[in-house]
């Protein structure tokens, strides 16, 4: 299956929907910092992988697909997105493990670049493997 970039969906998304994601993302980032301050980095770190904007994103995906193709398609699109997110989580684990192991060894910008590469490569490999197996 070929991966495509379509700017049409960006144009279709309303500004209010972007604002919703911005506010959710901002609030959760703030909360993760506050939790780390209150309970320490061990608990705070858990929340760096909190799927906070997932419900908002999934319901926006469902809404867009429902408007285009009907009720069943909306729920299915959100479910398929969740399947992709599960594969992305494998990359997220790899990102966190890379950052953990590299933090005391490299410069910050090197860690960010390397860990992001680790995330994208492992996520894509997980996605390809899942596509071939299932």
């Amino acid at each position, binding site marked *: 299956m070929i*991966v495509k970039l*379509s*700017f049409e*969906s*960006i144009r279709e998304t309303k500004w209010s929907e*972007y604002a919703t*994601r*911005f506010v959710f*993302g*901002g*609030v*959760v*980032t*703030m909360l*993760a*910092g506050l939790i*780390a301050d209150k309970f320490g*980095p061990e*608990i*705070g*770190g*858990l*929340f*760096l*992988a*909190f*799927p906070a*904007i*997932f*419900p908002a*994103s*999934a*319901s926006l*995906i*469902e809404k867009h697909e429902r408007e285009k193709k009907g009720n069943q398609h909306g*729920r299915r699109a*959100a*479910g*398929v*997105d*969740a*399947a*992709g*997110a*599960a*594969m*992305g989580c*494998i990359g*997220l*684990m790899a990102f*966190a*493990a890379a*950052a*953990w192991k590299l*933090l005391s060894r490299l410069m*910050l910008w090197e860690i*960010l670049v390397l860990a*992001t590469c680790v*995330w994208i490569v492992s996520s894509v490999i997980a*996605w390809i493997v899942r596509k071939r197996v299932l």
Partner: protein
Amino acid sequence: MTHELVLRFVIGGAVVSVFAMLGGALKPKSFAGLFGAAPSLALATLSLTVTNKGSAYAAIEARSMTLGAVAFFLYASLVCYLLLRRKLHVLGTTALSLIVWIACALGLWLIVVG
């Protein structure tokens, strides 16, 4: 403190929005879903954490984040099953299942670290 919180809000909101926009532009949907688990929060806060609290503190956060990511995997798999097989309501399912993420993340933390 307030300054740092505002900075976290702005940077976090911006990074999350960029990944959401990128995910929205990609097809097929299952590939776009990868961006639903992008390391947005970590990318937004890692620089601030290292600058304010040091690398050792950030490394402890990153170690815990691996467990949070395992919990996210379980959460996303459950949501996928409930939406595709049980045909439940999207917002209700994704929001209520966050309880599963919290239980799994804290449970894993207790088993591995605590």
